[in-house]
């Protein structure tokens, strides 16, 4: 079953603008992760935020986590055409033990226009 649900499903912006994608989930988590997928390719891990963290940065990426609202956001600043891809949030459940299963949302398709 889907755990994370991204919003919006699709986002189109101009190069240089910021892109914000949101994710909601249903159950308690150990951590939440964001991935990027270029068309027809495998997924690339972008950033992981633990359940006891509220914000994390990596280059042009900023992720926030609000466990009280069971939501997260991914901000890409100063977007580039190369950022065009699908972005997925995924969660590792708090009660998963050592299997570290990831449950994915359906993704947000980001298009950055030159």
């Amino acid at each position, binding site marked *: 079953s*889907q755990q994370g649900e991204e919003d919006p499903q699709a986002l189109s912006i101009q190069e240089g603008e910021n892109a914000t994608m949101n994710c909601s989930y249903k159950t308690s988590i*150990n*951590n939440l*992760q964001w*991935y990027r997928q270029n068309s*027809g*390719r*495998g*997924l*690339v*891990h*972008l950033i*992981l935020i*633990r359940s006891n963290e509220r914000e994390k940065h990596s280059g042009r990426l900023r992720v926030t986590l609000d466990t009280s609202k069971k939501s997260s956001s991914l901000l890409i600043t100063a977007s580039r055409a190369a950022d065009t891809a699908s972005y*997925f949030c*995924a969660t*590792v459940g708090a009660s998963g033990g*050592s*299997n*570290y*299963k*990831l*449950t*994915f*949302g*359906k*993704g947000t398709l980001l298009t950055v226009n030159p």
Partner: protein
Amino acid sequence: SQTIHQWPATLVQPVGSPLSLECTVEGTSNPNLYWYRQAAGRGLQLLFYSVGIGQISSEVPQNLSASRPQDRQFILSSKKLLLSDSGFYLCAWIRGANYGYTFGSGTRLTVV
């Protein structure tokens, strides 16, 4: 460095034919291994995972099976493919808690 290999990249198979997709990991030992399937325009569905040799957990009852004959080898199989088995299959591994997954490049399977 750790790498993950997945093959073939594309596969067209007739209904009722067998399937074998292979995934191998290099540069690490005793990884957790996963098979996911992605339908067109959809998120990823976990099919199987393995925490050790010979240990397979199935997430969704279906026409597929998985095996882990060696520590760094994970195989996805079917005896008779169905049209509904078409999709993009991804293998992944993880080092441990609070690490991200490393995905293979995927196999696009079309059952005709």
